[in-house]
């Protein structure tokens, strides 16, 4: 089951690159997000899965679609032919090499056990990774101000 979800994820990603229509590409990307979220549920990461569906499959897709419709019109971009034809070959070759190397490399790795963690996500998020939350505030403020700065009203002299 797990492996099928991952294959779906990869297939959707490839579709997102190959789709001629940008709108279809954005929707394929959302599909990939949903496969990823299902993988997360499978691995017991329900909260991350919910976030993935609501924020990445939802919000980011909306942002993409808004941009696509705002920039539509003249100046269609023609992608290079070989980029499109080469991708499946590239993916298959990469996958074969990947599975051969990964087993050799990662299988032999020693590892230390991690410390046991708190019982619920709230405790982990608030009392173990508190510093990350401050960083998130900084990142959010930065993102919001960047968007405000880039869409501020044009002054007269521009």
């Amino acid at each position, binding site marked *: 089951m797990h492996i099928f979800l991952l294959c779906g*994820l990869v297939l959707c990603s490839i579709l997102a690159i190959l789709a001629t229509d940008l709108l279809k590409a954005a929707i394929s990307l959302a599909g990939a997000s949903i496969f990823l979220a299902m993988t997360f549920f499978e691995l017991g990461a329900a909260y991350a899965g919910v976030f993935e569906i609501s924020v990445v499959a939802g919000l980011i897709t909306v942002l993409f679609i808004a941009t696509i419709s705002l920039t539509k019109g003249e100046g269609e971009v023609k992608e290079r032919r070989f980029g499109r034809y080469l991708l499946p070959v590239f993916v298959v070759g990469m996958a074969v090499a990947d599975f051969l190397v990964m087993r050799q490399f990662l299988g032999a790795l020693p590892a230390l056990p991690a410390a046991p963690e708190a019982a619920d*996500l709230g405790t982990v998020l608030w009392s173990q990774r508190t510093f990350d939350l401050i960083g998130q505030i900084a990142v959010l403020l930065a993102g919001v101000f960047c968007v405000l700065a880039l869409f501020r009203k044009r002054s007269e002299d521009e």
Partner: protein
Amino acid sequence: MSDTWIINMAFVALLVAIGLYALLTMKNLIRMLIGIEIVSKGILLALIATGYEKNNILTSQSLAISFIVVEVCVLATALAVIINIHRHTKTLDIEQLTNLKG
């Protein structure tokens, strides 16, 4: 290290490779951003799979949530820049943006 982790990490490498391929070969700016998105899906999978492997799924979920927040902010900034570029040049073709010499 368990088989699940190895399989997951192999898919992570595959996703990152596909994303980088898109970044290198595609000419449309939005499609390049889709490439970046695919790379970040790979990273998310790496974080969660590692947490599952280490029996630390909650920690890795909180990392993943932080990462998603960062991803959204970077993407919003990038799309804002792209819309502004489109206002100037009326195109999304990376090869038209040759004002900058290396």
